[in-house]
């Protein structure tokens, strides 16, 4: 049976992980390579690296990191942040990433999705989207949820699927950082509307939140950062918990 995936997300700045990550057993918790390896050993199904440097001078630092991660990591990983062209993608994939995530650049230029899907295959194109629920409904936001676009989320996701995105990573700005659970109502609607895998993001606080997003939100995977980094939730324990609830996981 296809397992629901648990995906820790690591923010990267200048080739180092940011946020005080609480991995006492690591010599250097700021080293993405060591951290990636530790997460794979703990049972993570995939990893997402989000580069928040995203300036062109620092690109080489990121590519070096991607290469080093690829050498040690035996599970798939996605790299996002500041990717805006076919050339950026070619470099990141060549360094060893399995997938890339695009967000703002795809909103500004939807044709980029088509171009990447045709050149590299849909399987490596993750369309990340930040959205907020307002009176108008779910609206797409840019720059980490600061800039409204006027584009409605569901329309955008349908278009992204049609253009060849292979997977959707949806972050609810209403839920992100609250630790009150994922945006399950919206997730369930999206999951039924599109026929590509859906990653839930934003709102993970406890183990039940993950169970809820898989059952009620019909998500195929769930992404979180701080609950894993600060060891509020241990991945192995989380998977045991999900298994007891008859949710298929890889143990």
């Amino acid at each position, binding site marked *: 049976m296809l397992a629901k995936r648990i995906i820790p997300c690591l923010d990267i700045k200048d080739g180092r992980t940011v946020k005080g990550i609480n991995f006492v057993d690591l010599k250097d918790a700021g080293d993405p390579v060591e951290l990636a390896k530790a997460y794979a050993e703990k049972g993570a199904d995939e990893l997402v690296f989000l580069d928040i440097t995203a300036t062109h001078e620092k690109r080489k630092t990121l590519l070096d990191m991607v290469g080093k991660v690829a050498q040690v990591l035996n599970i*798939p990983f996605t790299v996002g942040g500041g990717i805006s062209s076919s050339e950026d993608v070619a470099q990141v994939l060549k360094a060893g990433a399995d997938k890339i995530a695009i967000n703002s650049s795809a909103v500004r230029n939807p044709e980029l999705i088509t171009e990447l899907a045709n050149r590299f295959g849909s*399987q490596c194109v993750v369309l990340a989207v930040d959205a907020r629920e307002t009176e108008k409904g779910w609206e797409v936001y840019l720059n980490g949820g600061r800039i409204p676009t006027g584009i409605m989320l569901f329309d955008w996701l349908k278009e992204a699927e049609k253009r060849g995105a292979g997977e959707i990573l949806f972050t609810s700005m209403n839920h992100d950082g609250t630790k009150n659970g994922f945006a399950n109502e919206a997730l369930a609607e999206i999951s039924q509307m599109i026929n590509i895998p859906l990653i839930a993001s934003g709102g993970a606080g406890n183990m039940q939140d993950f169970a809820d997003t898989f059952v009620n939100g019909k998500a195929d995977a769930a992404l979180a950062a701080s609950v894993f980094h600060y060891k509020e939730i241990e991945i192995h324990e989380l998977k045991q918990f999900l298994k007891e609830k008859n949710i298929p996981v890889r143990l």
Partner: protein
Amino acid sequence: MTKQNIVIINYEAGNIQSVKYALERLGVSAEISNCEATIKHADKVIFPGVGEAAWAMNALKKNGLDKLIPQLKQPVLGVCLGMQLMCASSEEGNTKGLDIFPVETLKFPAEDKVPHMGWNQLNQLNGDLFKGIKNNDFVYFVHSYYVPVNKYTTSETNYIRPFSASLQKDNFYACQFHPEKSGDIGQEILSNFINL
């Protein structure tokens, strides 16, 4: 592990670096090449692939690799699209394949999400690649096309329907999943191939 000459076929199709790194984690170094003589003289050959079938087949033809691969006598391991190209044909771009396995590659019906992406279980395990691997062990898949279960099937996975997770005929081995991305289980499968 004895020192071996392992060649990964390079035809500009995807995850070649990942396969090389996975072998390095097993303490084996591999050469990436599209040179006919190098491939011919390898002890083992790995035929990876990510991307679109018709495009990949054309890339093989450009280097004459479409003629070479079916004639290889040493153990050959096709991975993902590599496996699909080793079949007679694929519905993807109506592509004629290498016909090592006389079976067809079909598109998953849209009864569930496509691509089949993530960790799924192996069953009906058979053959040398799966020494030490247990039924229901998980490996990582990403694909929209599948090879139905047939007489060359050496393991099965169920998504929408049971399909071939791996194939074998004589010296030709192939897996639909990515052993290089399948954690410890994948490393063990690769190691079994190296030890053939």
